């Protein structure tokens, strides 16, 4: 849900008559922040492939965003701002993180986090998650921003800082690579994708 810097203050729930408007606003913002941070953490997990690195990335992103609050004057979409900041940190530290990748298999993490799926579903999810880790990071970013987080092509382009045409191109190549990697029963982990 895009961040609305000018929410309708009059739209309060009559059922909350016993609760002050301030605390209701606070709860609403807390929920909004939880939603955004969940998106960040989810995206980072699949992007980085290592849960510890992903959490480091999200924490660093939050710290940077909070410490740069003065520059928020021009921020109209908090979610886009958060994802852009996370992208920048990821790109800056990609090489460092790459050396640590694989300490904890992401398939295991996903299996632990998700409710026990049916066997067929689980195989499909495992193959997809494994294949995502093989994709070039540029393609992985776009596939996840659009497919996992539901950003529009323009929003994804703004987050990554590339033209929309580049987003479309990366999306197309990324999805096709995923399709090929997962086409024959989970051979993703053994394959390498060439950009």
């Amino acid at each position: 849900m895009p961040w609305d810097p000018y929410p309708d203050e009059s739209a309060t729930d009559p059922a909350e008559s016993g609760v002050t408007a301030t605390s209701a606003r606070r709860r609403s913002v807390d929920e909004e922040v939880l939603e955004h941070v969940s998106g960040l953490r989810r995206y980072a997990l699949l992007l980085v492939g290592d849960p510890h690195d992903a959490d480091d990335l999200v924490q660093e992103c939050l710290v940077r965003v909070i410490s740069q609050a003065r520059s928020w004057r021009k921020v109209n979409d908090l979610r886009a701002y958060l994802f852009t900041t996370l992208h920048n940190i990821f790109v800056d530290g990609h090489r460092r993180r790459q050396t640590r990748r694989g300490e904890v298999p992401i398939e295991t993490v996903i299996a632990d986090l998700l409710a026990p799926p049916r066997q067929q579903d689980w195989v499909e999810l495992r193959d997809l998650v494994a294949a995502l880790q093989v994709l070039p990071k540029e393609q992985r970013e776009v596939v996840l921003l659009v497919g996992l987080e539901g950003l529009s092509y323009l929003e994804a382009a703004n987050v990554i800082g590339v033209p929309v045409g580049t987003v479309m191109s990366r999306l197309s190549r990324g999805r096709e690579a995923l399709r090929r990697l997962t086409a024959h029963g989970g051979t993703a982990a053994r394959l390498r994708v060439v950009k």
Partner: protein
Amino acid sequence: MNQSGAASARSTVDEGELHALVDGRLPGQRRAAVLTHLLIEGGDRERVEAYRRQLAALARIRKGLDRYAEGFAPELQRALADTVLRLRRRRLMLHAAAGLVAASVLTLAAFGALEAWRAEPEIATAIVYEPELSVPEFPFGGGFGQHTKVRPEGDRDRSLAWLAGHLRDQPLELPDLRGLGLVPVGGQVLDGGSAPAVRLAWTDSQGRIVDLYVGVVSSNAEQAFTMVGESLVSLHWRRGRLVFALVGPAESPELLQAVHSVVSGIRQPVAPAPVPAGKAKGATGEPRPIRAGVEPVPAVQTAAPPVAENAAPLREVAPTKVAADNPKPL
């Protein structure tokens, strides 16, 4: 569909449209053409189905991790929520201030229209309309918000003492706006006008300038409007013989608080005895240059227009000079 129809459909559908269809972002008018294309092109249909399965799998992951951040870095989440709330409050205040200004302008416009309407019959009956209130020209030198540079802090007290000399029985003291994150950076006598006036300047941590213009008037005549620079806003009020104008960045919601601080600061001056007119250090009735107490360095305010005519030569002061007082942004 026959062969020619298939070739026609294939030629009009590109890869981007296939992905737009998968993502539900294909415009309605193209949807039929792409679906027709998929009926004909089995290979593309197979790919689109695979992409849809990918999306469905990602959606399952998303649903499973819907509240993935619950309990994650609670202090950071709280700090982020605090920042969001603070920013929203600030923007709401800005909107309220903008609405107030707009309402004032509309009220003035309506009043002007009413006056014009009331005057019309007199014109129609050939009676010359003479307003009872004459509106003299603005009596102070220059226009508000037109001074791009700030004199050194040392001139602030001398300017204030010079102005106090025109009040005889009322001492003046510089209001303390540090509670609002504003640090005094200087002042100057505004010469060139028919009434004595001074300009006092503060700055915030971002180097933006807030000006307080204080003038002494001797009549009860209302003063004319004056213009401020682009992106600035001015607040005017009067207290006895003193006329005030506070000019600052338009986006600052704390200007009204600054007004209250100034009013209370002027109301309860601390100690200093009034300085007789003409006795203040370096003060005369004539325009005079003010000597800087520190070396000039570039100022940072960029929003204001060029220096007003008749203003004395200006020296610049860097906001960093007062950084030790820990100014905050407006």
